[in-house]
């Protein structure tokens, strides 16, 4: 129980840090860059929304910084994120919530797939040391995982879209379509998601294969694995229940840590493919100096990562009895 509370406390602390970064940054930069942005809102939005933005960015505001801070916190926590410049006059919340499903679908699914597949391959590679999986894949994955995500994205685009015309050039779906729950649309979505998805899968799977393989190799030399052999257990049982289950534990924590990298890569992949997820929106917001949208996207991305970490924590607790009693 203590453990759960600590993790939740950490969640809150990080959330607070994120909000504070959002608040402090524009004020730190010489000549608050938000001033220029705010000028573009002048006369276009009503008093309430304008006030919220002024509080968030400290422009035209006579209140003390502390009052502004709490004003900003209050606004954010009640969901008043402001109005978007890029998609004016849509409120930021609408933009964010329309982009979220695309990213969760693309990044979420591929990341989980990469984790599962990578872990299994890594386990098998360590089990048969010296076999094909073990000698070929690790160096190969080391090299591939060093490639920037967006590079593979560009290559993929070049090969499959521009040259071969097999897959679409970008976006979430063809702009001749209207979103609807039809097979046609779903197929369209999938074909647009295939290339970006493959890029994310290929670049991130390498890390899992490698870490699982290394963990597995260490675990296989442990006494309890030898003991399992001595008991006459089948190789499959030893690999999964004795070695695998122990070897995967550091990976689960690692998964949480690496989400930051995955998210980063996903942002660039979305950019290259003009895929309408939060990453693409983030970069569009930056280009348009739409700081309100930018901050909110940053917040949501961080929250998503935090939630994933919490989930991983609970999975670890379920798998490792020692973690349940840890303080």
């Amino acid at each position, binding site marked *: 129980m203590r453990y759960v509370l600590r993790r939740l406390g950490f969640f809150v602390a990080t959330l607070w840090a994120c909000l504070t970064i959002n608040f402090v940054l524009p004020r730190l930069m010489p000549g608050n860059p938000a001033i220029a942005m705010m000028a573009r809102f002048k006369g276009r939005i009503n008093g309430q929304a304008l006030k919220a933005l002024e509080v968030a960015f400290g422009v035209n505001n006579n209140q003390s910084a502390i009052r502004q801070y709490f004003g900003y916190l209050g606004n954010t926590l009640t969901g008043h994120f402001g109005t978007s410049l890029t998609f004016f006059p849509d409120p930021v919340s609408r933009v964010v919530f329309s982009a979220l499903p695309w990213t969760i679908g693309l990044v979420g699914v591929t990341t989980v797939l990469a984790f599962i597949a990578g872990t299994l391959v890594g386990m098998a590679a360590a089990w048969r040391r010296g076999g094909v999986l073990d000698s070929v894949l690790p160096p190969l994955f080391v090299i591939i995982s060093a490639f920037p995500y967006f590079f593979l994205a560009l290559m993929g685009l070049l090969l499959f879209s521009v040259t071969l015309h097999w897959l679409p050039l970008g976006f979430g779906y063809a702009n001749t379509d209207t979103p609807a729950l039809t097979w046609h649309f779903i197929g369209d979505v999938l074909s647009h998601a295939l290339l970006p998805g493959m890029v994310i899968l290929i670049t991130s799977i390498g890390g899992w294969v490698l870490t699982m393989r290394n963990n597995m190799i260490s675990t296989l030399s442990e006494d309890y694995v030898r003991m399992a052999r001595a008991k006459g257990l089948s190789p499959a049982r030893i690999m999964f229940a004795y070695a695998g*289950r122990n070897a995967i534990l550091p990976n689960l924590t690692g998964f949480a840590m690496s989400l930051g990298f995955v998210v980063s890569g996903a942002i660039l992949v979305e950019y290259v493919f003009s895929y309408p997820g939060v990453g693409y929106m983030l970069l569009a917001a930056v280009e348009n100096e739409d700081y309100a949208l930018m901050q909110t996207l940053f917040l949501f991305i961080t929250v998503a990562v935090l939630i994933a970490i919490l989930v991983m924590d609970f999975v670890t607790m379920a798998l490792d009895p020692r973690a349940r009693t840890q303080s």
Partner: protein
Amino acid sequence: MRPAVSKVILEVDDLSVDYASSSGTAKAVDRVSFELSEGEFLAVVGESGCGKSTLLFAIARLLSPPAEVSGGKVVFSGQNMVAMSDKALRALRWRDLSVVMQSAMNALNPVSSIRAQFFDAMKAHGESDPKVAQARSQEVLSMVGIDPVHLASYAHQLSGGMRQRAMIAMALLFSPELILMDEPTSALDVVAQRSLMVQIKQLQAELGFAIIFVTHDMSLVSHFSDRVAVMYAGQVVETRPTGPLFDDPLHPYTRGLLDSFPSVYGPKVLVEGIPGSPPDLTSLPAGCNFSPRCPKAIPRCSTAEPDLYEVDDAQVRCVLYEEGTAGRD
């Protein structure tokens, strides 16, 4: 102490284990041969690195690369374990031959409960009825003096002594003929050590299994073993019933070992160790492995490799005993 009917259950014949290292091949176990009778307690003693643990794991076919059996036979229950298929080996494991390791903390799966690990072994050998498995698990835990409620515990929740006994209980699940023990008391304090030894001896009396007990602590086994095999640099240098070995050690190395332990009751004598250190297993000396440090070495020792010679009730690897009783002090 020796059972009246000595049926041989284990025959180790010229067993050798090579260990590939970056500086060459080390002969971790060099042509070890001995026999074990039903219900016998054989202690294998020696310094760290003499190969006694390697020997044990070689017998059980539990070695991992870079260690490999490079020759010899291990005949158990009429079958040569060295040549056995993995499938046949798995069937035999734990049923007829089980293992107890040095540290239960490392030997028990940290993420599974004790019950799960007991059940694992039973399921692997065809016992899938949970009621039967539960009953047997509780039975073996009681045998070692642990409350069966601890079946639900995890390894880290038990004390050191309890963990060790739980491991022994696990080894008894199928009432095997032979239990191999690798320094099971080393991780415990002196009092717990003795109590564990007494318990082991009791269980042996009740259930009749044979034991090969590896340890570096000779005094520990002196009251419990039937026979002692002394190892040095991968070879067995002396095998003898316990009493006579302690009273009158034949091999100079054994004598040196025993002389290193001061007697509690006897007169105060200057304790001498054995000068020098064990040889590098990748470059063994010519002739007898012990000759560079042996106080009784003769010129022949550095040229001729001694075999195990029979002397009365002992086997000794020393050229001084080549003609039987000749060379005894």
